[in-house]
């Protein structure tokens, strides 16, 4: 059984992923889009910036950063896990090795960040790490595929 997506989604998801990634990271880190796309959302924990010990409440929130998060994660996963035109066992091996390497690098960076970055900045590291493993996997896999097809 394989869980790969159809090859026809590869190009479209790639374009959306690499366009939305820098925009999304900027939107999330800068917080410049707090007034855009404000909707009522449901939170199972208390809304931020309140001291009430409440949960399971509706409150107004800019949904732009959440939207970017959905788009980046979904398109990143689809693009990374699309079938190649000829999907054979060597491609599967390259995919697995790329995923393993990206996981090691990503968690290595988290360990280093935990050791050397403290305070509020550490939150940025965690936010960036939401996408780092997908990005690394995508880049490593694409590079190794490029080398494979060149051989």
């Amino acid at each position: 059984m394989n869980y790969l997506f159809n090859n026809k989604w590869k190009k479209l998801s790639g374009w959306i992923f690499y366009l939305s990634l820098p925009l999304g990271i900027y939107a999330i880190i800068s917080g410049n889009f707090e007034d855009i796309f404000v909707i009522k959302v449901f939170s199972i924990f208390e809304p931020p910036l309140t001291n009430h010990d409440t949960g399971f409440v509706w409150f107004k929130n800019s949904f732009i950063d959440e939207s970017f998060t959905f788009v980046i994660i979904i398109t990143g996963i689809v693009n990374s896990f699309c079938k190649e035109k000829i999907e054979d066992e060597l491609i599967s091996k390259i995919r697995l090795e790329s995923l393993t390497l990206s996981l090691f690098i990503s968690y290595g960076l988290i360990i280093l960040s935990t050791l050397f970055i403290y305070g509020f900045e550490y939150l940025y590291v965690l936010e960036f790490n939401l996408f780092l493993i997908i990005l690394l996997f995508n880049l490593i896999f694409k590079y190794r595929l490029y080398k494979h097809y060149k051989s």
Partner: protein
Amino acid sequence: MKNNIRMYRGKFSLTQEDLSKKLGVSRQTINSIENNKYFPSLELGLKLSKIFECTVDELFSLD
């Protein structure tokens, strides 16, 4: 592990492209196998032995 795929391919007058089509893999995969960069699965090994009408032992051997 080493293999005699290139030799058998020559014997059957098949190009890497022809063989890749018969096996349903890419031409680059055949190239990687021939150059010992990739060791194929048992399934692929059996398919190769069927195409070349020989045993797996005759195709692959340990160094």
